[in-house]
């Protein structure tokens, strides 16, 4: 297994190199550059040429790439062209916000999606099954953007229950250390901030979790249905086992595999979904930061953030592959 792990980790390197090359190339291939965006309506050829020169965009592209890769290996992703901030530092500062949101979303998706899928499978054809699958279908089809605005409208404007966006109220004074607000507030024993941070987290997490929740529910249901019709389930029943034991110990354990695959894939979806969710809910994470940077053609941020997301994505997929071995003893990594 260890050999497998090492092999997998080594294959990650060309993947990341490929990603960096693609991102680096694509962002330079699209027309328009940071100087043009900075100047807006004022972008005359002379202005643009001067600003380009000042921003150091005149070096040959291959040279820029080699500099980028060399620095990236040392953990330096360069500086934002527009704001002159070190990308690595900014990335790490914003990342906790995105992780907090993504983890909450996947948690909600799992806590709701899996039980809903199991119950739907057991009571196949019941009203609950029909209702939850309809809801799941709605969940998959709904644009996150629209859902977000509807949630704000209902829970903030009409019911006055939850805030419309941001991570904390505008007037809250709180010094975060790790920037995981829930963690920080607990560490500092500031339960008021914890509670506020939680209130701000609910709507974006639900919006972001809606699609994974729906997919997980459907996947769990179909995986369970397949397993439930298997011979060993009939045998388990025949042995006189309780329904609960049959479902949890025999059926669910065998249904895990496809569910885990889906959850792993959803992580990628969460990161891309975060871009929209973070915009609607004014959430200061890397998704929104990346989009702003793409529009502004701020190359270093786009390269750095994409590479970072790629690392996470590859890492999660690797974890999922290895989890298979735990869940299904038949799988061996040789």
């Amino acid at each position, binding site marked *: *297994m260890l050999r497998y792990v*090492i092999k997998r*980790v080594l294959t*990650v390197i060309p993947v*990341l190199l490929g990603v960096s090359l693609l991102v680096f190339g694509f962002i330079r291939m*699209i*027309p*328009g*550059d940071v100087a*043009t965006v900075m*100047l*807006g*309506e*004022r*972008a*005359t050829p002379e*202005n*643009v040429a*001067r*600003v380009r020169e*000042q*921003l*150091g965009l005149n070096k040959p592209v291959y040279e820029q790439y080699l500099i980028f890769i060399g620095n990236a290996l040392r*953990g330096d992703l360069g*500086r934002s062209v527009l*704001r002159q901030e070190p990308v690595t*530092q*900014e990335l*790490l500062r*914003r990342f906790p916000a995105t992780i907090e949101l993504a983890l909450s979303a996947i948690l909600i998706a799992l806590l709701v999606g899996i039980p809903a899928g199991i119950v739907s499978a057991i009571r196949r054809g019941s009203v609950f099954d029909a209702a939850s699958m309809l809801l799941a279908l709605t969940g998959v089809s709904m644009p996150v953007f629209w859902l977000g605005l509807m949630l704000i409208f209902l829970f*903030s*404007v009409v019911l006055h229950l939850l*805030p*419309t*966006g941001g991570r904390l*109220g*505008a*007037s809250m004074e709180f010094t975060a250390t*790790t920037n995981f607000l829930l*963690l920080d507030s*607990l*560490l500092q*024993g*500031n*339960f*008021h*901030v914890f509670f506020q941070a939680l209130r701000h987290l609910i709507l974006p997490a639900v919006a972001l979790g809606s699609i994974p929740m729906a997919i997980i529910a459907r996947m769990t249901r179909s995986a369970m249905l397949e397993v439930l019709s298997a011979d060993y389930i009939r045998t388990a029943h025949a042995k006189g086992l309780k329904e609960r034991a049959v479902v949890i110990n025999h059926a669910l354990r065998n249904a895990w595999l496809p569910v885990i695959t889906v959850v792993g894939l959803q992580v990628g979806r969460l990161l891309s979904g975060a871009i929209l969710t973070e*915009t609607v809910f*004014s959430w200061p994470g890397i998704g929104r*930061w990346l989009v*702003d940077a793409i*529009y502004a*053609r701020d190359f270093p941020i786009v390269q750095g953030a994409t*590479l970072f997301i790629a*690392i996470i994505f590859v890492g999660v997929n*690797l*974890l999922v592959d*290895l989890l298979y*071995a*735990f869940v299904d003893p038949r799988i061996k990594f040789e």
Partner: protein
Amino acid sequence: MSTVWKKAFALLALVAIVATLAACAAPTPAAPVVQTKVVEQTKVVEKVVEKPVEKVVTATPAPKPGADAFIFGAQGEPVCLDPAIITDGISSRVTRQIFEGLVKFDKDTFNVVPQLAEKWDVSADGKTWTFTLRKGAKFHDGTEFNADAVLKNFDYWRNTKNPLHAAQEKAGQTFEYFKNQFWGFDDASIFAKIEAVDASTVRFTLKEPQGPFLNNLAMFMFVFWSPTALEKAGTNSCKQPVGTGAYKFVEWKANEQVTLEAFADYWDKPNVAKMKRVIIRNIPNNSARLLALATGEVHAMEGLEPRDVDAVKNDKRLKLLLRPANTTGYVAFNYKVKEFQDLKVRQAFAMAINKKPIIDKLYGGTGQVAWQFQPPAMWGYNKDLKDVTFDTAAAKKLLADAGFPNGISKVTFDGKEVPLDFWYMPVSRPYYPNPKDIGTAIAADWAKAGINVSLQTVDWSTYLDKRKKGELPLYMLGWTGDNGDPDNFVCYFFCLDAKDSPKPEEGFFADKEISDVLKKAAATVKQEDRAKLYQQAEKMIYDKTIRVFMGNNQPPLAFLAGVDGYIVNPTGSEYFNTVVVK
């Protein structure tokens, strides 16, 4: 070792490898982050177990949102808070509260009035300007505002050998506006000499008279830093602004908000900030921002969608203010299109558009029809001009006279015959709040007169890039004035360079007569004389139908009904010190 334990061990090893990998690709602090997380999680448990009850009791109650603060919902994130460097409205909204210049725009007009200068004199030849400075004005760091501070700031902006100026340029920062408004740096700039006559008198000697000089000085970027603070901040000036304004800088949380606090020692006692704090929140989505206003999470907002204007008007809890128009949206012809070189064709394009319903319906009720470049509030506006009458039949006839009895759908662009593309912008701008719908409506009007265009767009950066290179045959764009001076509107587009070469970024426009009038106006100091020249230029542009001007927009701002004292200024540079939230 059982298989389960083997697997557990392998998994742990994997986690360690992934963490190391992250540490290699990401910066050095990555690895410690992973470790501390674990430690901190343990701590959480400890703390909660130790004394949870006590903590709940002693936890500071949060101040009621907005109890003492004015919270403004902005459309995006400031780029930088050093006014000398920035060019965007979102950053300048913040720096306006912190910094002040010699002069400023008065209330809701383009009129220039004293700010840190008490008064000024200009010599008869328009080249020597002497400013008497206000005594007793203090910077937020406690240092005195005086002639020396003025000189040091001008040196920072103008002198490329000034260590900080050089360091900023090296770090990729540019002094864009100083170069634009004052012709360049060092000896290229318009200044022959800048000197302190005494501690409270500054004299500028210009190489040539500059018409818009005072208006330029009133712009948001020519405001003064505390020299001590600037030196301390160095190339970190974007994050540590220190001026003389009614509010001083407290904190900038990236992608969240900027917090300012009333400055107790503000020199202008009657105008000391009314609210204790100002918070400018970044809420990028227009609808979400309006929802935040509806719930009272922000007190005011910009970037209202045209479709939401009526809803705000009809909501008793909210109110609407319109900023006087300082914007003009136009349709520009590319003169490399052979057909557009014919005046009759251009006139036909202008005449075939029914502007009124477009402006009324697609500007959310905040627009007004335009037929010249400057908005009506500007003193260079030509009151004698009247808009061409909308007349589809007459447009058809003009096209027939020009040799297109069957209308136009293909054109010769740069020597090649191509379908006529009409480009609309992909983003909403103040002058075109709804570019796609407006573009579609224009195209529909044209179709009735036999002009068949195909609508095109592309992302904003590419759009600007194509426009800059003169690749758009027919396109929508517009302008928002910088300094309330007609020069900044008309000359910026229609003044040619020394060789009178066609400007690609203006559709290869190259009319020397218009350019000469505008250049003359720019070098004249007396406002009455200048006004006549700009009016003459507007008439020439109108007669030649150089462009089709569509509308001026009065950008709407929405407030909670309890917000008073917000004074809208056409330049968009508004001060928050008069604002009260009830």
